């Protein structure tokens, strides 16, 4: 088990990060090349001011009509994304690991804060999962893969939380935690989760198309 642990926080961690970052870069590079050839409409009407506003208004909570129409969902949606982003990056334990593995670290949050954010995350997670199952217009679109991806974001939080609080077998939980987190990183570039980066491109385009060409706000 110790060997497995060492592998996971050693070579596997490197692989996960390389696949994650490299995969995203490759995907963006590929799409960029393709767009130069087949999506002239993007460049013909590019207008940075509209592109940036189209992105910005969807990055702030309730920044668009659509979000204001669904206030509770928006709240949960933002909590989900903020925690999903902040907890793994700024957790003290992670930062110690970053330091060890890559020689860099970020500012850390206290363990208490991380605990609260994890609980907030889990609440929003359950909300999104329930919404997927209950709301007909979401359920009809949902595939097994969508559930898998959602669970994949949740598992590292649950296992990490339990391990920290020493509920259950610490070593097993920790290994599961790292394993699933790495799996998630590897899956991101090749799934709809690539939206963490593609979001900016698709929003910029619709900003050009509606705003740049017609002065219409897409938020």
């Amino acid at each position, binding site marked *: 088990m110790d060997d497995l642990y060492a592998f996971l926080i050693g070579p596997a961690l490197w692989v996960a990060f390389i696949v994650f970052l490299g995969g995203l870069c490759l995907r963006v590079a590929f*799409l*960029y090349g*393709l*767009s130069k*050839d*087949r*999506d*002239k*409409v*993007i460049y*013909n*009407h590019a207008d940075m001011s509209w592109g940036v506003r*189209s992105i910005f208004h*969807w990055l702030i909570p309730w920044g*668009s*009509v*659509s979000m204001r*129409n*669904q206030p509770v*969902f928006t709240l949960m949606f933002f909590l989900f994304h903020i925690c999903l982003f902040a907890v793994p990056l700024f957790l003290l334990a992670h930062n110690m690991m970053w330091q060890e593995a890559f020689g860099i670290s970020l500012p850390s949050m206290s363990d208490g804060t991380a605990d609260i954010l994890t609980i907030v995350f889990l609440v929003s997670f359950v909300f999104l999962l329930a919404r*997927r199952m209950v*709301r*007909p*217009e*979401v*359920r*009809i*679109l*949902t*595939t097994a893969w*969508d559930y898998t991806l959602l669970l994949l974001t949740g598992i590292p939080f649950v296992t990490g939380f339990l391990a920290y609080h020493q509920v259950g077998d610490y070593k097993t939980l920790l290994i599961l935690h790292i394993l699933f987190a790495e799996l998630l990183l590897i899956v991101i570039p090749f*799934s*709809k989760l*690539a*939206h963490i980066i*593609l*979001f900016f*491109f*698709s*929003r910029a*385009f*619709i*900003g050009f*198309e*509606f705003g740049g*060409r*017609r*002065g*219409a*706000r*897409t*938020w």
Partner: protein
Amino acid sequence: MNDVLEKPVDTHKIREILNANDGARIKTWLSICSRCGLCAESCFFYLTNNRDPRFSPAYKFKSTLAEMYRRKGNVDRDFLRKCYDIIWGECTTCRRCSMYCPFGIDIATMISTARTVCQSQGVVPDGLERTSVNYRETGNQMGMSTDDFLDTCSWMEEETGEELTGLTIPIDKKGAKYMYCLNAREPMYYPQDIGMAAKIFTVAEEDWTMSSTGWEATNLAMYAGDRALAGQVVKNMYEKAVELGVQNIAITECGHAFRSAAFEGPYFAGYAGGKPPVAVVHSVQLFYEYLRDGRIKIDPDKMLTEPVTYQDPCNVSRNGGLWEEGRKLTAFLAKDFREMTPNREHNHCCGGGGGFIPMGPEFKKRRMISGRLKADQIRATGAKIVIAPCHNCYDQINDLNKEYNLGVKVLSFKEIICETMIVPDKFKPVEGDDEE
């Protein structure tokens, strides 16, 4: 269309279309849609069909274009038939949903692409196919011959000339400031629309012309998914404008004609840079400028006093950028203006767009169901007059008026301007000077 249902599917051709469209945008949209369902509430089909999830925008592209890509083009007639119902019968390509999707996914573009695939297999509404035949033969959707068209123009010139001295309808005038392009329904069924436009241009002392060819501004081939033909249709207009050396193309009060001429046409016709070779303006813009600049003055005593509301045609407002011009123009003409909610670029489609009106009786029932939202919107304003600067909105709201007993009158800007403008003395026919 029924006879083509027997023919084998040319999957090779389908693959070709799918590949040609498989660019960064469609790839991105299809892969990042998070199935969040946020777009559902934005679509009037969804809202008027008991929130049936099958009417949500994401479901519509997921079960059509996305499925075509998933199956790599290996689809059968049954599948295409199902797509037919969705892409023509449940979406007007109004593009409202794109404003409500977190990724700004352009669902209408994907539905249009699915239309192109179906069209390549002859799966296309009969009503649209009929206009395609006409476009091919005569360059206009009504199949009107050049002689008939020119006769109609000179007839209108004569008739309106009796009301306005000095009125002419110039044809093929070189170097004019505006080449005025029409919806072929006008010369065919509403020739007085041409007369009214001529009056407005005359009073505004505009340097304008009509053209003997390329005068058709509508482009139903765009809605039929026939991009090659759609390109030919706009090309006729662009090339005529270039040949005459006019400065602008002015489009009659028709929404999709403007979308085609100003935005999508250059792509269909393959013009580099995505811009038309000659600037394109819509009547709403032009008429607004006439009133703003005082080239046409409205008689305050003739202004509309009944409550008025304004229908933002999708392709004039959201997809044309002219929602404020439409309102400012209305303010010149009406004393009691009432907004629909939502409005401007967020307005809902009337239900007659995307080819729905020419798709005819086969689709009428759905059109009345989805139009209920517009009917409710109009009723809630308490307006007695609905201004609709688009032929499809105009027809649809007239149908809704009957179906839902709205008790409204639908008017175009031309009609109102002609009724309310002050005609300067120099254009007034001398009393008793009846030549005949």
